[in-house]
């Protein structure tokens, strides 16, 4: 491979990186305060439906072996 070809492929690579960075720089962002409050709201709204967070009553836990009760 001639040095001309080598430098043109790394040049093409560099151009792609610059193009990608230009796209990422133009991204339309929102404020961290809004992003944070949205995350907190999502956690709050879905907490009651999060079994690992709320705990699972034995009778509703499919993974817990339910031992039969004997009435003496």
């Amino acid at each position: 491979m001639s040095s001309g070809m080598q430098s043109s492929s790394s040049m093409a690579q560099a151009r792609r990186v610059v193009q990608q960075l230009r796209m990422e720089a133009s991204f339309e962002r929102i404020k961290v305060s809004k992003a944070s409050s949205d995350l907190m709201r999502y956690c709050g709204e879905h907490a009651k439906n999060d079994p690992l967070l709320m705990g699972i009553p034995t009778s509703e836990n499919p993974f817990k072996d339910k031992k039969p009760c004997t009435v003496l």
Partner: protein
Amino acid sequence: MGEMEELRKEMENLKDQITAARKTFQDSTLQEAAAGVTVVGRVQLKTRKTLRGHLAKIYAMHWGTDSTLCVSASQDGKLIVWDTITTNKVNAIPLKSSWVMTCAYAPSGNLVACGGLDNMCSIYNLKGKDGNVKVMRELAAHTGYLSCCRFLSDTEIITSSGDCTCVLWDIETGTQKTVFAGHQGDAMSLGVSPDFKFFISGACDFTAKLWDIREAECRQTFGGHESDINAIGFFPNGNAVITGSDDATCKLYDLRADQELLTYQDSSIMCGVTSLAPSKSGRLLLAGHDDFNVNIWDMLKAERVGVLAGHDNRVSCIGVSTDGMACCTGSWDSFLKIWN
């Protein structure tokens, strides 16, 4: 020569621009915003089931969407589909190559996939006519190991590879639809957004990238980690990304603010993160480490609220079921455990 130097300068300028732009939107921090939130109480999960059967290190596991079945991959050369409630093995699939590093369950429940040092992603049909599970397709084109794979449907799958690329495949034709290039290190892990429009990848170049599947482009790149990113996942609403790294920390990045919100770290945690999964509401983050433990974090407060200690070797994979009822861990000790 002149153009190369100009391009390098422009690269540096653009990187500085991005850093500056992110700062202008940093009017607060998640830490400040969550100051009034009470830390979650201590989370104590118990092992409810132990899935025994693999004869060597388990490298990967993935829940089926029914929250009952899951698939695991071990370097004993087998893919096992388990009924996690009865602990029965529904399928035990022998693999051509035992050097498996990843596995996935299709949302339909019809297919599973795996791959590893063979550089291929093999698709298996669980619902074949004669009841035998056979290889349906071998997706070959990567020039490096297969680190992760995730189905979009029965006809499309996304893979990440040690060749630094991620690929979207057409399963029926066995061909590459799109190659996602951009990472400058092995792509180690990937996650698909809840709406199936995007996926995220974590790599050995210490960055995470968000990709638009249909537009075939990288939308955003997130840095900050000081070592390889081994694990990645979406926050349940699809607006944030969580990463786990060899630098022993996890990070939360918000997609719309385009920046890191929190780092989950503790001076007592010195081992790399191998795997991670959020709980159903996103409030808890479960992270598997090289030190045989799983740390449970309050995701809003960045405080450790629990530990799962039960494996006798590295925790290599973790997953929370779709209905959020259980967490499954897989380990180099050859066992899978179901916790809740």
